[in-house]
């Protein structure tokens, strides 16, 4: 079995984003970029499945600017076998990404695609589900545990009410939640080794997918700021304050 893991290059989760003055978006110049944290979890899970002898190959793919290569190198350094960069300088939406991923899934013959449940930049939480629908495959989203057996995959999912377990027939699509695993750090030797692993480069335009955005972003603005509050000296003062404003 081959596992495909799409990875996205995003502003690092520790960075407090700044907006461009003209309201056109988030300023990403000179900002630390990293692999979307949920995608790291997806890579880790794919590697664990391979290490358990349930997959032969883990292929990482990223769609975006040339620098997505760095994100792919991270995936290779973690242990992915090879990488595919689908290059585009255009802002590309989840629907178009899912369409390209559907073609790549078929091209490489992946029985399992593991994605992060959401990207921490646009917080859309839709690419994995769209991919599953386009491929006509069952999906296990927000996964906190996976178990492969007899051509099926049991997926424990984090849902609003707690946990839920589904059984999916393969091929399938899974999206990773935070508690699926704790991703490994790439060791120095593995980072060196990753430089020699194969990375194929293709152009998004080659997939015959219409990349025109469906959402016309008119403005990206600051959220309403909260006014700074006060410090209270002790619990008694806290309770008094809360009572005075009718909060309790």
């Amino acid at each position: 079995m081959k596992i495909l893991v799409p990875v996205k290059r995003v502003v690092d989760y520790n960075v407090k984003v700044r907006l461009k003055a003209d309201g056109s978006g988030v300023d990403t110049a000179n900002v630390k970029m990293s692999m979307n944290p949920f995608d790291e979890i997806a890579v880790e899970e794919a590697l664990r499945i391979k290490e358990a002898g349930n997959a032969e190959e883990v292929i990482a793919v990223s769609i975006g600017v040339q620098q997505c290569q760095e994100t792919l190198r991270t995936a290779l350094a973690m242990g992915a076998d090879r990488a595919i960069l689908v290059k585009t300088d255009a802002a590309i939406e989840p629907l178009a990404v899912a369409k390209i991923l559907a073609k790549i899934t078929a091209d490489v013959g992946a029985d399992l695609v593991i994605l992060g449940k959401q990207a921490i930049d646009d917080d859309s939480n839709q690419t994995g589900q769209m991919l599953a629908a386009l491929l006509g495959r069952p999906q296990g989203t927000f996964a906190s545990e996976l178990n492969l057996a007899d051509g099926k995959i049991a997926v424990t999912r984090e849902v609003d009410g707690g946990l839920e377990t589904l059984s999916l027939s393969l091929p399938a699509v899974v999206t990773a939640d935070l508690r699926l695993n704790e991703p490994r750090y790439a060791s120095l030797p593995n980072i060196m080794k990753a430089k020699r692993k194969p990375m194929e480069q293709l152009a998004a335009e080659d997939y015959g997918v219409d990349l025109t955005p469906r959402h016309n972003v008119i403005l990206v603005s600051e959220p309403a700021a909260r006014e700074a509050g006060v410090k209270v000296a002790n619990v008694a003062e806290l309770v008094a304050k809360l009572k005075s404003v009718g909060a309790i």
Partner: protein
Amino acid sequence: MSILLYVEHDGTDVNEATLKAATAASQLASYLDNAEIHALVAGQNSQAVAEQAAKISGVSRVIHVDNAAYAHPLAENLTQLTKGLMDNYSALVAAATTTAKNFMPCVAALLDVMQISEIIKVNSANGFERPIYAGNAIQTLESSDDKLIITVRTTAFKTATLDGSASITAQDSAVNTASSTFVSAQLSSSDRPELASAKIVISGGRGMGSGENFALIEKVADKLGAAIGASRAAVDAGYVPNDYQVGQTGKVVAPDLYIAVGISGAIQHLAGMKDSKIIVAINKDEDAPIFQVADYGLVEDLFTALPELEQKL
């Protein structure tokens, strides 16, 4: 054309989140020549839910599909069902619960449109606002798609009233794809209010130190009739179950009062609670970022503050 509202339920009651989505749907309808809003109830033995849904203000018709295929909200089955219905609708609206987040993008993909995730404002017939970057930026967008697939951030909309009287149309359109099957669920049960809709929430973080220590929080919650939440760190450490997580990638809450205890205030946590009306922070580190959003900050060890708080309430 009309708007289809997906009704989330537990087999007995309409989820309160749906009532918030109904308000968003009504606002959208006002820009669409007062388009009708139809509510979709899919479930098994779900007559009571359909009857409740018929009362949602603004809904003119309930489409009730009662079939074993919908005993559990499997994405594949719900996708086929709603996609089929969408011929007659120009928009599909649902609260951004884990159920809707699971299947709505599938419907969007099959209709060849983008989903508009977690809207916080309706500006026009195709214009919306939604938070991005953990709520650190607000995106104002216009969709060029011919059908709108929308999930609604429930904290941004009022609860629709239950004073309507829609007609109920039973429809049988069982689709069972069988490519995924429900195995089991471990749902948290509690007598406390639901985290997502509680008026008061008290959350614990890594500073709680253990699951046992959450008893200190429980005692305060009992006094206040509050729901209990947690930071990711507290969930990851196994102090409390996953459904307690508040934040960018957990639940988004906006109660009248939010009390954060032993939580540092990482942006991912703030994303889930900073729209609360009043925020209280109890933390022994006076420089903890949580104090920057707190209306009332108490710099104190939580192990002394919580028992005292319980006693003084």
